[in-house]
């Protein structure tokens, strides 16, 4: 009975979140809260995808924004070059582009482990950024890619901010459910095995390189989805969307929230966005605050916000 109550509460909360713009009109007339929430949802998709790598498979990527950027450019360019606003065309373009890029970068970097993997993903990310920044005829270069068309499906347009918000929330729940299903599957357990003891996994007969490459591509593809929604939301893609700054923010989101937990990356995405964007409009040194908070968590609370909350909850119960 208690389980059903928790499930019902979760569904109600999800429905409330997805329909936020509809019932917040009264007090959020400037749509500021809606914009903040939408950005957080997009970043949360990005952080959840990175968490598959960092939190579950134990692969600390510092180049994840390459796939976010690839998805954003692909969704934007597909709409412009193919002259269509079909949602599935844009999503497919983002998924395929991000996956292919992840396949190439992954092939070259999953052989390395730990810090070396981090080093290589960082370097390849810089390469993708440099290309995006300089290839003016494709990406718009330093000026960015502007006038991106928002998607529609079967005559249903997501051109208005409110309808796009609902679509973004749906994508967020879908990716969340997918992550949940992956983590509980035997594949997800194999990923955790990879993190805990890769040699034993190999001895058990797992093709660990293939496993590492597969999760790298999967995480890249989901980051591409986040990128596509970012492009539709902003109607603009900057080279910085494939830059190292976002990759660093991503890993901070995952670790700050709680790596290897389902909710952690979402909490982390909210915390990082609130510091980087909202706090930033009040104080001039928001990034310093983020840096200090991150250092404090790495030193004192490696299980992240979710881990600390769980411990506090357990202590309160006993």
């Amino acid at each position, binding site marked *: 009975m208690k389980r059903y109550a928790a499930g019902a509460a979760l569904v109600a909360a999800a429905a409330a979140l997805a329909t936020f713009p509809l019932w917040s009109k009264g007090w959020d007339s400037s749509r500021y809260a809606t914009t903040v929430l939408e950005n957080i949802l997009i970043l949360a998709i990005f952080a959840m995808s990175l968490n598959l790598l960092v939190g579950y498979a134990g692969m600390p990527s510092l180049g994840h924004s390459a796939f976010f950027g690839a998805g954003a450019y692909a969704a934007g360019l597909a709409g412009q070059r193919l002259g269509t606003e079909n949602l599935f065309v844009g999503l497919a373009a983002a998924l395929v582009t991000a996956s292919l890029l992840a396949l190439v970068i992954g092939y070259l970097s999953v052989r*390395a482990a730990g810090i070396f993997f981090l080093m*290589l993903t960082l370097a390849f990310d*810089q390469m993708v950024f440099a*290309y995006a920044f300089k290839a003016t005829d494709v990406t718009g270069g330093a000026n960015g890619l502007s006038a991106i068309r928002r998607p529609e499906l079967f005559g249903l347009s997501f051109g208005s901010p409110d309808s796009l918000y609902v679509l973004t929330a749906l994508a967020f729940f879908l990716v969340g459910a997918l992550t949940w299903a992956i983590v509980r599957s035997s594949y997800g357990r194999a990923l955790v095995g990879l993190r805990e003891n890769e040699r034993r996994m190999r001895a058990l007969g797992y093709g660990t390189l293939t496993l590492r490459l597969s999760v790298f591509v999967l995480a890249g593809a989901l980051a591409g989805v986040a990128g596509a929604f970012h492009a539709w939301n902003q109607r603009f893609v900057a080279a910085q969307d494939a830059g190292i700054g976002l990759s660093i923010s991503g*890993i901070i989101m995952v670790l700050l929230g709680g790596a290897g937990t389902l909710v952690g990356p979402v909490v982390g995405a909210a915390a990082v966005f609130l510091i980087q964007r909202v706090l930033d409009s009040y104080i001039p040194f928001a990034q310093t605050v983020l840096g200090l908070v991150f*250092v404090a968590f790495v030193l004192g609370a490696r299980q992240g916000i979710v881990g600390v909350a769980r411990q506090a909850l357990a202590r309160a119960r006993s």
Partner: protein
Amino acid sequence: MTGELVVQQALNGISFGALLFVLAAGLSLIFGMMDVLNLAHGAFYMLGAYLALAIVRATGNFWLALVVVPVALGLLGRVLEPLLLRRIRGLHLQQALLTIGVALVITDLIRIVFGGELRTLPAPAGLDRSVDVLGNPYPVYRLFVIVFAAALAATLSFVYRRTRLGALIRAGVGDAEMLGALGVDTERLFANTYAVGVGLAALAGVVAAPILTLQPGADEEMLILSLVVVVVGGLGTLGGAIAGSLLIGPADSFGKVFLEQFSLALIFAVMALVLLFRPTGLLGRIRIGR
């Protein structure tokens, strides 16, 4: 491409490589000794460059900056190591992530103090001329950078091979735990290593200030180039940093001429090839790939 242009680009490439060597030597030293990937290396480089700018503005003396800035930032590193890195000794990945936080704070403070616009520093008096190289004028300061880095490489190489400190460093890179068992105070050695590594990053920043434009984001660019240098050359050895920078510097300058949009692609192609065929880097002992 004419012969003169080739010579000019080669000199540009070598002087840029010389700069990368100073930066990468510090990164490689810290990594080889402590297994810490110092992701704040680019931030320390940038802080060094901006402090040089401030000192030259205040005193007009570049050479003062060249001495004071690396020492001051080395001391900062000497304080930060026991304060932060020592607390999570042995957790190499966490240590690398920690340095990201440090980098965020440093770059933010630089932005607040110096602003975001592009800055340059004129070459110091006496070196702000051009000399004739094969019938074409070439800036003296860039030649100075090459000589300076070569002298530094020779000095470091001497310290490495002939002094007691060098023996400690070589032993520490090989097996720091064993060194501790032999009675060496490794905690102090690590703190000093980090100080020297940060000092080298700051030195690179001062030397780079008259050549490269100072702007937000320069820290990331240089961090990544120095990472590529040590990955290509090999981690933990001085020879690796030299070989890597002599390869990547010219690859960068020629890449900018031939490939434009893909200038970085040449560098990363070199890195990818090295990783696929020589997982330890050209002269390294630590395997990067498997």
